[in-house]
Each structure stands twice: as structure tokens, then as C-alpha cells.
């Protein structure tokens, strides 16, 4: 097993496994690259629409925005196989419908959630896989290989590790991506889970969405490493660093870790450096303006993942002329952006999901006490 030593070695080849390509994104076709671009819009629009729905008073619950972090979700999920698992957290709501979306946005067979299911979860309606038994982000779907999250955040990492342990004991070859903010990495269970996975070489890829803020606490009060990825050194596992604003770089680093795990080498940590656009949740937006300096926020948001992707696609020659100038969602807050800033198919997709959720019934009152126990067959 290769281990990082010295500085975090995002770009160094892993000596034992030279078969893992360093830049798998270079093999993506033009259509796939353009799809990555569209998916960034989709993730952004989901966020924007929910913010607008809350402002309109059509929605309750707390919104943990993934604005400015979309490349982490899109880039890390794009290369997974259908039977791989994910365990997203509260800030990753788009992950639920982005999983296996390459199989077709509306494909009912795909191993992910439909937009209708995700919207039903958000609105607390029966159409969600959990029939709205718990809040927005506490959602899982076994058939889609999506593990429920909990408010304990890193507490889901051992559960995810256990799921792939079971697959491994049964001769399977799946991997799991567990998503965490850098904040939850300070929990003891983060260590316990990753140490266990390292000892038993479990295919667990821990995506650390380093958005610089744990609620109101900055990284210098969270950990004392220059790069969080170096934490991996202590476990003898690879620690990779991805530019969290660049969907292609995230894709490359996560796919390196995925292939490494699938080959039986064990877990990795992939630190995706990004920046949280708003407050911790929408209840915190007003205070976040005070605990974060305006120039710090401006700097953290200056590389919008949509803009970074647009630039790359223009460089590759995949976006030209008028097409390169359309749909300028980047750099705009939810209050500033309009439907005109997004591709129409993205707007339509969300509209279908939201309308479905609004029309769906709430759970029957009798359901409240059901399913505490499984009745043995």
C-alpha cells in the first residue's frame, strides 16, 4: 500500500499501482464533459430553487446550501458504477439524484433517487423512500445503494464501511464514497472508522468537503495540519487533494481512489478544497455575514465551479460561439439568479419534481408508530 509522506501528494503516482491512470478525465468524451457541465447547473439550480421556495413560504425545514461546492458532488459521483454505494450528508442534497444519473435523468432503473423522490423528502411527503420519517438529509435508499445519513455526521462512516465489508465478505467488488465536511473529521468516530477500514483494507473513499467552516468555526480551530489530506499519513493510506472548484480535478482524484480501492488496496481520503457560499444553514446566513469577513467570502467564491468548468470546456473546444456565452449562473446568489440563467432542461427537471411533491400526500397518521420493529417473516 502506498502512503503519502511529507506534503500531501495529490499528483504523485502511486508507486505500487501504476495501472491507475492519473488523469482519467482525459478519457471523457465531449458529450460526457458537456454532461458534467449540465450537472453542475442541475445541482446549483436545485439549491437556488429550494432557497426561493423557502423565501416564498412554500417550504419548511433547514436548508444546508451546497452552493459553490457542486463540483465536489458532481465530480466525485460521475465515475461511480451503479452498484457502488454513497453516504452523503446534509450539505449534499443533490447527491441523492446525481447518483448514477449517467444512466439517464429519468431512467426509473437507475441506482439513484429520482428528483420526485428527493423533492418528496424535502417537502415531507410519502413519495420519499423513507416516507418522510426523518428530515431532509436523513434519507437513504437501499436499492439505490444510498446509505442514510444522520445528524452525527462522521457517525455514518463506520456504517458505510460495514456495508462494503458485507459486500466484500460476499465476494462483491463495490466501493463506498462517504461524504463529510472537514468539521466532522474532528469526531472520534472518524478516526475509528478510517483506522478500521485501513486495517481491513476496506474500499472506503472518504470525501472531505473542506469548505473552510464548521458551522461558525474556521479550519485553524478545527485541525492543525497545513493540508487536511495529510491526516491520511497516520493511517498509512493515500491522502489526495482535489481542487474542489474544478469538476475535472475532483473526478480525477476520486477515480484514482476508487480504482485503488477496487483493486483491493483499501481506503483513501480525498480532500476537496472548496468554500461554503452561505451560512451553515439558512438559519445562520445573517450571522455568517458577521463572522466571515466580506473579502474572505469574496475570495472564497471567486472561482465558481460553473465558471471553472466553462473555461475548461472552451479551452477544449467543446463550447464555442454563442453556446459558450449562454446561461450565466456563475457568481450569482439565489436572489440574483433567474431561470434564464440555467439550461431549460434543468429548470424543467426540477419543476417536475417540485410539482410532484406539492401534489403528494403527507404520511397517514397511523404510520407514526409503525416500523419501530421488523416483524420476522
Amino acid at each position, binding site marked *: 500500500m502506498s502512503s503519502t509522506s511529507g506534503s500531501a501528494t495529490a499528483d504523485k503516482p502511486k508507486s505500487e499501482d501504476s495501472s491507475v491512470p492519473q488523469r482519467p478525465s482525459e478519457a471523457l468524451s465531449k458529450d460526457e464533459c458537456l454532461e458534467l457541465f449540465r450537472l453542475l447547473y442541475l445541482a446549483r439550480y436545485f439549491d437556488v430553487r429550494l432557497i426561493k421556495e423557502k423565501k416564498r413560504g412554500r417550504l419548511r425545514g433547514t436548508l444546508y446550501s451546497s452552493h459553490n461546492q457542486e463540483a465536489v458532488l458532481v465530480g466525485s459521483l460521475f465515475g461511480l458504477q451503479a452498484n457502488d454505494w454513497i453516504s452523503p450528508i446534509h450539505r449534499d442534497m443533490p447527491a441523492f439524484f446525481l447518483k448514477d444519473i449517467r444512466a439517464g435523468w429519468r431512467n426509473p432503473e437507475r441506482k439513484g433517487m429520482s428528483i420526485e423522490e428527493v423533492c418528496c423528502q424535502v417537502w415531507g411527503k410519502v413519495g420519499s*423512500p*423513507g*416516507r418522510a*420519517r*426523518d428530515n431532509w438529509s*436523513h434519507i*437513504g*435508499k*437501499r436499492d439505490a445503494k444510498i*446509505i*442514510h445519513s*444522520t*445528524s*452525527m455526521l462522521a*457517525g*455514518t*462512516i*463506520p*456504517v*458505510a*464501511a*460495514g*456495508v*462494503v*465489508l*458485507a*459486500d466484500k*465478505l*460476499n465476494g462483491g467488488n463495490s466501493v463506498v464514497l462517504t461524504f463529510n465536511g472537514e468539521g466532522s473529521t474532528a469526531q*472520534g*468516530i472518524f478516526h*475509528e*472508522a478510517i*483506522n*478500521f477500514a485501513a*486495517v*481491513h483494507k476496506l474500499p472506503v473513499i472518504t470525501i472531505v468537503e473542506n469548505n473552510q467552516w464548521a458551522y461558525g468555526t474556521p479550519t485553524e480551530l478545527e485541525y492543525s495540519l497545513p493540508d487536511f489530506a495529510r491526516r491520511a499519513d497516520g493511517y498509512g493510506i493515500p491522502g489526495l487533494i482535489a481542487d474542489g472548484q474544478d469538476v475535472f480535478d475532483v473526478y480525477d482524484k476520486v477515480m484514482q481512489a476508487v480504482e485503488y480501492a477496487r483493486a483491493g488496496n483499501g481506503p483513501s481520503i480525498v480532500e476537496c478544497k472548496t468554500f461554503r457560499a452561505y451560512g451553515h444553514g439558512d438559519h445562520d446566513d445573517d450571522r455568517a455575514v458577521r463572522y466571515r469577513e466580506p473579502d474572505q467570502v469574496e475570495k472564497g467564491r471567486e472561482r465558481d465551479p460553473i465558471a471553472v468548468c466553462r473555461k475548461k470546456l472552451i479551452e477544449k473546444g467543446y463550447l464555442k460561439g454563442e453556446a459558450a456565452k449562454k446561461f450565466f449562473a456563475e457568481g450569482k446568489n439565489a436572489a440574483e439568479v433567474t431561470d434564464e440563467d440555467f439550461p431549460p432542461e434543468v429548470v424543467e427537471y426540477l419543476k417536475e419534481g417540485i410539482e410532484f411533491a406539492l401534489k403528494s400526500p403527507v404520511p397517514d397518521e397511523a*404510520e407514526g408508530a*409503525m*416500523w*419501530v*420493529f*421488523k*416483524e*420476522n*417473516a
Partner: protein
Amino acid sequence: MATLEMTYREALQKSMFEEMDKNADVFLMGEDIGRYEGTFKVTKGFFPKYGTRRVVDTPITEAGFTGIATGAAMAGLRPIVEFMTMSFSILALDQIINHTAKIHYMSNGVVKCPIVLRGPGGAAKQLSAQHSHSMDGWFAHVPGLKVVCPATVADVYGMLKTAIADDNPVVFYEHPRLYAMKGELPDDPNFTVPFGKAQILREGKDISLVGYSLMTQINLQAAELLAQDGIDAEVVDVRSLLPLDTETIYASVRKTHRAVVVYEDWKSGGFGSEIHARISEDCFDDLDAPVGRVGGLNVPMPYARNLELLAVTNENDVVAAVKKLL
């Protein structure tokens, strides 16, 4: 039917061997359970027989391995997790309460979690403040867990089989002072003991002694002492806390019209208080005296043997509580 005589520990081993032979999805996980064969030697002989795939030695990581076993159960396996002592399950409470116990409910009944969390709980001998916890009442407070506390050799054998077959998480509560106890069990690999069925281990007409785990054995000893004084005590072994068989308990109370609930946990807020409250609520008209309650002293378990003996319930405490009510 022919019977076998063996210890409580041997009955546990026999039960696990038989279930692991039957079902390849059953596997063991815990600290020092494989190569070392278990601190209390419950897993003696398992690693040589089943190897690394089915006997997983873990780092010292209660929260970690509980979560990992929970994930494995969610994905279709049937893990048996050993806590070296139930006192260490405190380290895993977040995993147990927030993941293991809730996933079936949160997934609206789609994801089951068939896991057995087993190990010795309660005071052994001079293991002091941090190794002597009675965690049964803590777990029996949580919807989504089943909690069983077998008191006899036959029960520990038959209830472990039921626990492994159950599609829910089961906290399987053994007692360190029972491991060496000898007893009989039916010579039948298909013998099981269902959850939610209390049993009368000794019939009597004057008072009901209600307890579980080691306290059932204490109650049997107390009943012997009471008999010398002409008091005819009935011993009700609760066996399973969740689900709780109140009918058998109530039927006994309606016969004797008096009851003492005996539990090892701290007296304040222990599960015995719940049984006490149920009897008081539901059998009020049948009672000739207030329901008695004997529990552990509300102190961290002292190390010095004389102080420990003061803190742990014994048969004389039960006799004294009975005599106050007659």
C-alpha cells in the same frame, strides 16, 4: 426429552457454533475474540474453526465496530458483536441509538438491521466503577432495540438462537457471574426460547419476586431462605425486557397480591422501576401492599470488596424487602 448438563458459557458457545454452521451470513466481530478467543472465553474455538472471514478481530473501537457491524447487517449479513463488557457499550451508544436502532424506522421498514450485541453486563467481582455497569435499562429505553437478559443455561442457549434469527437489533445481556453456572438444557439443536415470554421458576402463593439475569438466581436463593421462615415466594423470571411480558408478571401478582421487583442496576431509574410502575398502575386493585423494589446502591461501583458487597443486591436484601411487606 434427554437433557445435557453444561455451563452457561458452554451453552452460549454451543448455540453460536450451531447457528454459524447453519447460516454463513452469521459472523462474529469484536475485540480479542478471534486469535485470543475472548476475554471471558466465550468465543473459544471459533477462530480456529471459522477463520478470518467469519471471526473478525477489531482494533479497540467500540463505536467503530458497532457502526461497521450495523452497516454489514443493513447490507444483509447477521453480525454477532461482542462487547468485552457491556460497560464498554457506552462508547458505542451513539451508533446503537442513532443508527442500529433507528434505521428500520427511518427507512419506513425497508432496511432491517439483524444484529446481536452481546457481552457480559453487571458486576463481576471487584472490577469497580467502570467495568460493572448494568446497561440493560439504558438499552430497554430505546425504541427499536430488543433487550433480553437470560438467567438460566437453557435460556441463554435458546434465546441466543432467537436473537440471531431475529431481524431486529437485539441486545443480548449475559452476566459474568453466570458464565460458570451449571444447568440443564434440552438435547435438541432446534430448541429455542421466544422473546416476550416470562417464566415462573418457582411457584409460591405469598409474594412474587420479579427479576431477570443474575437477580433471578438471587431471587431463587431468597425464596429458599424465605421458605425456612414459612414464606412461600413465587419467582418470576422476566427474561426479556423489550418486549416485556407483563401478562405473566401480572398473573403472578394477582395470585400472590404482593410483589418485589429486584434489579441489579442503580435503583434510581433502572428498568426495575419501569416494571414496578407497570404493576402499580395495572394491578392496583389486586395488591395487598405497595410494590417493593430492590436495586443497586446509587454509587459508582466501589472497588473494596466490603464496599462492593454493600452496593450489589444479594438474597438477604430481597428477604428484608419481602419481610417489610408481609
